[in-house]
């Protein structure tokens, strides 16, 4: 029980911080709800990127720094292909490209580096990141592209009766959230019910044991990198539809790193919950904590969302090194 006290303290602080603007009447309830929803939406996108990380880490022990680059690559592919063909066809083609990419990565990067240390593999994925960033922009161009999802842009007003002024909410945000939920459900089904999913979980549990009962490791890696590629397409399309496809996408994806350490490297629910916490936390901090900070220290503008996620994740790590839902048997120092 004593172990949990710091965790509880941190959790309580966060929850109090979340409701503080409301309690002190620093903001109208409607505005607060809007910030909360905006944070949740951003969180969904972080979760999607984090999901790719977690899948690959679980199955192959590789910390895939290239997930952000994969999101950018997939989004660029969809954006440019959809100029010449309908969106669904572009997505299918992009999916094929991502599968081919997964095979190439497995063959050219992972297989020669099998049994290397985690750090070496991390560096290799950094190399993949540079390669993909360059390749994507050479192949598809480096301007800003749009992905037209065919969803009306104007926000809808909900709950006008409950709050004064109601809440403005974007339709594409709602669609994004729905897609994310469907994706997670599909992944859960895939992992729990199919043979391949079981094999994946076995590999995640113990590489050697899985191999000794005849599960082909190489094929599993291809599958898991393909799945991560598909998740990258979903994240890329949603994000690209919202903000346009450009190079900064791969940078924004760096936000998924604190999400994975918050949620635990090996936990799918952790990625989702962590993403939502980070999303809400940083939006709330930016809107309600930023202005007082700027005033108090005479800063040249806010922008604390750039580091808030990392500091939040660090605090979490200090009290709970394995993350929210990570495995307990982490190496303690």
């Amino acid at each position, binding site marked *: 029980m004593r172990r949990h006290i710091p965790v509880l303290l941190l959790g309580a602080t966060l929850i109090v911080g979340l409701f503080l603007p409301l309690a002190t009447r620093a903001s109208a309830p409607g505005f607060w709800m809007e910030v909360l929803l905006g944070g949740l939406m951003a969180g969904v996108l972080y979760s999607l990127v984090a999901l790719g990380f977690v899948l690959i880490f679980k199955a192959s022990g590789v*910390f895939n720094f290239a997930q952000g680059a994969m999101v950018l690559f997939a989004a660029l592919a969809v954006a440019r292909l959809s100029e010449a063909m309908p969106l669904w066809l572009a997505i299918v083609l992009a999916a094929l490209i991502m599968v081919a990419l997964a095979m190439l990565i497995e063959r*050219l*990067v992972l297989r*020669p*580096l099998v049994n*290397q240390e*985690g*750090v*070496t593999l*991390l*560096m*290799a994925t*950094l*190399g*993949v*990141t*540079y*390669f*993909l*960033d*360059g*390749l994507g*922009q*050479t192949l598809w161009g*480096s301007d800003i592209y749009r992905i037209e999802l065919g969803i009306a842009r104007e926000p809808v007003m909900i709950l006008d009766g409950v709050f004064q002024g109601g809440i403005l909410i974007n339709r594409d945000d709602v669609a994004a959230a729905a897609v994310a939920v469907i994706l997670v459900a599909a992944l859960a089904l895939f992992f729990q019910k199919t043979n391949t999913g079981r094999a994946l979980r076995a590999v995640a549990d113990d590489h050697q044991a899985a191999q000794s009962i005849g599960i082909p490791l190489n094929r599993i890696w291809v599958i898991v990198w393909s799945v991560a590629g598909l998740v990258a397409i979903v994240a890329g399309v949603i994000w690209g539809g919202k903000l346009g496809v450009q190079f900064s996408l791969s940078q924004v994806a*760096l936000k998924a*790193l*604190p999400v*994975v*350490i918050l949620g635990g*490297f090996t936990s799918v629910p952790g990625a989702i919950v962590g993403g939502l916490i980070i999303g809400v936390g940083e939006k709330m901090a930016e809107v309600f904590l930023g202005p007082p900070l700027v005033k108090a*220290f*005479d*800063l*040249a*503008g*806010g*922008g*604390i969302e*750039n*580091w808030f996620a*990392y*500091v939040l*994740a*660090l605090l979490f*790590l*200090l009290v709970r*090194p394995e993350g929210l839902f990570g495995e307990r048997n*982490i*190496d*303690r*120092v």
Partner: protein
Amino acid sequence: MFYRENGQFKSSYRADQQMLPILQDRIFMLVLAAFAFLAVPYLASDYLFLSILVPFLILALAAIGLNLLVGYCGQISIGHAAFMAVGAYAAYNLVVRAPELNFLVVLVLAGLMAAAVGMVFGIPSLRIKGLYLAVATLAAQFFMDWVFARVKWFTNYEHSGSVSPGPIELFGWRIDTPVEKYEFLLAILIVFTIIAKNLVRGHLGRAWMATRDMDVAAEVIGIRPVYAKLTAFGISSFFCGVAGALWGFVHLGSWEPLAFNLTLSLNLLFMIIIGGMGSILGAYFGAAFIVALPVLLNQIPQMLGAPISTATASHLESMIFGALIILFLIVEPNGLARLWALGKEKLRLWPFPH
């Protein structure tokens, strides 16, 4: 034939424990230093100085610093450009607010400031390790980027947010031509190389290496992990802080907060991977490789006569860069320093191998 150590008998502890025990190595290093100090200024052009040699010398210093932490102590950091930034801004503020200080004193104070910040961000390493720690060090990167972009005091209330201290002066010597910059940096790099070389073979270096190889075993034989890890973070940040101050004052001249961004951190990491983890020499090789590669890649399209737009060239460059990293990891995970050591082994037997 020439590279033989037989016949070189050590008859005192002093001789046995010197930094370069083999006579030929000592001669080689002296010749190399003399060449670098005396001959290179006449041979190299200003372009070569400013685009390759000056950044190479500074980044080699930073890479040595990072190597102390990652290569010797085994704690990965993806945020070391942040400590370079701390050094640069600390030096700037010292120069602006206390102009009477000698620049060498400023350098040391800037390094100490970076060391203090580095130790604060090294605290998570006591609780977590490996990849978790790597991500945690990113917090330093983003937090420091933000601090120097937003807190006006650090940039002396400049409106643009970028700072431009004048050229540095040392005992009345104004360092502003490429050759002077080169000589000054070379002298500093040599001093710091000797410091690093002696650190890693002393008790501190052995404590770091024991912690790297197996932290539990290190603790059992009486090495305090807190001490080992925090000193590694502190000293490594000190090197990077000095390098950052030099990067700002000597190489860039004027800079904005984004000069010390994540890309620089990753480049530092690449330098020590390509050069060789846990090798001072490797930091030199890695820095040379990473500094020279973009310049060379820029030359290739011109040489082939194929007109490629600068955008395409930079994308191709990033592709080749990424591919080379992967290739290096697969072919020689121990880096260029390992190739150098192999070459030396071969040279010992040459020309009569067995």
